[in-house]
């Protein structure tokens, strides 16, 4: 959305420039996309081509990406219109690297703005806005000899993308996956995980159901994975689990799907955002407040990891919602998704 497409050849660019003399003030693609919305070189779009129900609360959505798609890694962002308003959320890619289409698997969050729509009401053929894949939670290169994945709930998704990639390449190293879900029927990819384990002797899958035998924690995992200390640990799941793992073991590589709790003390106030005053409520991020006011705000993960939301602070200070600390000097690039205001400030839009 705030980026030009990669991979357009210089000859292609020349043609487009010539054609844009005919379409000014629009772009050629504004007409081309009448034929197919995916023929855009400036915004990355995708078309929903298949949906598969994984559990009662989770659905896999397969998306055919448009011209601007640069390829596949982890940590994909998706933009969908919910009741006419565009929202963006991150979803990990579950399709293997190199696949023609991309797949995300979404689990419904109660009261969520976006995930219920994705799970229940996303007809085949819907055009969604995408961002190029980004994120650090990817398979290490070179692969370590022994891996341990610890996941729970929808945290299985990035790991599933990795397992499918390894499966496709036929290079499954010594992997243990410990995955927790509430009940057997809530376990996303249950059958496929069993199939993978049956095909690859070097893959061991341990499923645990919290409603039956309690939540996953480091001690439990240590009892089922005897050589845990020899393994490189990748973890993704609820904050409680990740906090416990990081507290108990060293070197855990973790990905969080939810931002940590927010400080509300001393936050909120009016910010001049791109030449218009916007009221930021206590505990609200500048990104959320700007979006609510109809501003076109860049964003990505919405939780302080991707820096897709940074904008220059021109006057005043902002307050970090994670720590409650006021910070910022004029000229600083601030992450609007995890900062609230604290007194008058001015932030420029791109």
């Amino acid at each position, binding site marked *: 959305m705030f980026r030009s497409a990669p991979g357009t050849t210089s000859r292609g660019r020349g043609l487009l420039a010539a054609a844009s003399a005919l379409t000014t003030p629009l772009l050629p693609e504004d007409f081309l996309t*009448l034929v197919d919305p995916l023929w855009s070189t400036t915004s990355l779009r995708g078309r929903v081509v298949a949906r598969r129900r994984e559990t009662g609360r989770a659905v896999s959505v397969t998306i055919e990406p448009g011209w601007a798609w640069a390829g596949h890694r982890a940590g994909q962002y998706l933009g969908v219109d919910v009741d*006419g*308003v565009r929202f963006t959320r991150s979803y990990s890619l579950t399709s293997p690297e190199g696949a023609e289409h991309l797949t995300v698997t979404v689990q419904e969050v109660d009261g969520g703005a976006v995930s219920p729509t994705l799970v229940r009401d996303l007809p085949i053929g819907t055009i969604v806005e995408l961002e190029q894949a980004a994120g650090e939670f990817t398979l290490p290169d070179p692969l370590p000899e022994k891996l341990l994945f610890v996941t729970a709930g929808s945290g299985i998704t990035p790991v599933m993308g990795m397992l499918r990639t390894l499966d496709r390449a036929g290079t499954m190293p010594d992997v243990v996956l410990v995955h927790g879900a509430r009940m057997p029927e809530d376990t996303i990819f249950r059958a496929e995980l069993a199939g993978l384990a049956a095909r690859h002797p070097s893959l061991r899958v341990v499923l645990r159901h919290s409603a039956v035998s309690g939540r996953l924690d480091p001690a439990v995992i240590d009892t089922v994975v005897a050589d845990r200390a020899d393994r490189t640990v990748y973890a993704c799941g609820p904050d409680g689990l990740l906090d416990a793992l990081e507290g108990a073991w060293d070197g855990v590589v973790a990905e969080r799907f939810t931002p940590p709790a927010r400080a509300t003390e001393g936050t909120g106030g009016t910010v001049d955002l791109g030449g218009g005053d916007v009221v930021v409520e206590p505990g609200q991020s500048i990104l959320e407040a700007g979006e609510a006011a*109809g501003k076109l705000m860049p964003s990505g993960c919405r939780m302080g990891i991707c820096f897709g939301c940074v904008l220059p602070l021109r006057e005043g200070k902002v307050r970090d919602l994670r720590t409650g600390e006021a910070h910022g000097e004029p000229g600083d690039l601030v992450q609007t998704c995890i900062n609230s205001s604290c007194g008058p400030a001015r932030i420029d839009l791109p």
Partner: protein
Amino acid sequence: MTAVLENPAHLEPGPEETGREQHPQRPVLELVPSSRREDVQATTELTAEQIEELGRRLDAIRDRVLAERGASDAEYIRGVIRKQRALEIGGRALLFAGVLPPAWIAGTAMLSIAKILENMEIGHNVMHGQWDWMRDPKIHSSTWEWDNVSSSAEWKHSHNYMHHTYTNVVGKDRDVGYGILRLSEEQRWTPYYLGNPLYNFLLSLFFEYGVALHDLEVEKVVAGQKPLSRVWEQVKSIGRKTGRQILKDYVAFPALAGPFFLPVLAGNVTANLVRNVWSHAVIFCGHFPTGAVQFTEEQLEDESRGEWYVRQLLGSANLDGGRFFHLMTGQLSFQIEHHLFPDLPSNRYAEIAPEVRELCREYGLEYTTGPLWKQYMQVLGTINRLALPNGKR
């Protein structure tokens, strides 16, 4: 430069002399008797409380529409954009066969409609921020550039800010005469204005250029109130945009048609003229037919929200017509509703118009409306009459 508007604040008695303090019961919002309706003042004997109450009731309409806004509105604007682009492609394609008269006529008509839709229902309303809530970067006031020689950035200043804030305030709202015409008795007559009907005719033909030059505020430059560096920036920006537009319609497309250069050029010229004449007519009928009121700068002081609403109501005029007509005016046939709520999605104006009209009836405010031809005749009448030194002065 003879076309300079006189500042009416210097011509009118100051606030002390109007006796406002001595008569606190008099309406807070005093109206300048319009050049065309002497009895407007009599129809707005509203107390300050009534005006605030009216403001609250209008706010309630606004809040309701905001709460309802959703997927169907988004589908509406996307649908209009798709149809407009299809019409434009179709019109231009037909013009390539423009040596055949039926193809030329159909192509020119389609291109004219496409340009009108693009400027009125899409461009004007998108740049008002009516669709910003969708957060679609392709349909957003901060990114939209329209098919018109004036750049959207300049236009957002002169139109959204100056005109909508200072609606019909003579000397502030530069839409009153575009700095060229005499449209109010508050503008002092000079012999220059003998040409009023001619200037209006030329303005309607070249309306997009009039709009582009609008924000230059030439009269301020002449009066030395505006730095030349700012003017130069604006001239460069207007030049860039104008250059691209001219290149497209008068060079690139005709050239692409090769031997059919002339029919394509003629079709494009015609479409731009049709668009100009049409938008000029619609826009002038929105504020200057009989019944629409003009205001003085002093009335802006300490204006409350309710008073602002009343000024927007009385300064604007609607046009009667069917659905296609409303679409072609960019819903500016609901000029009153648009001026009350410039950032509500345009497709909602038709729905709230009956309520606004009913409120006007209840509060005894004039809700000016009529067919386009009739309103336009009134505008022309005013323009002709004001060419001569009649009126109060």
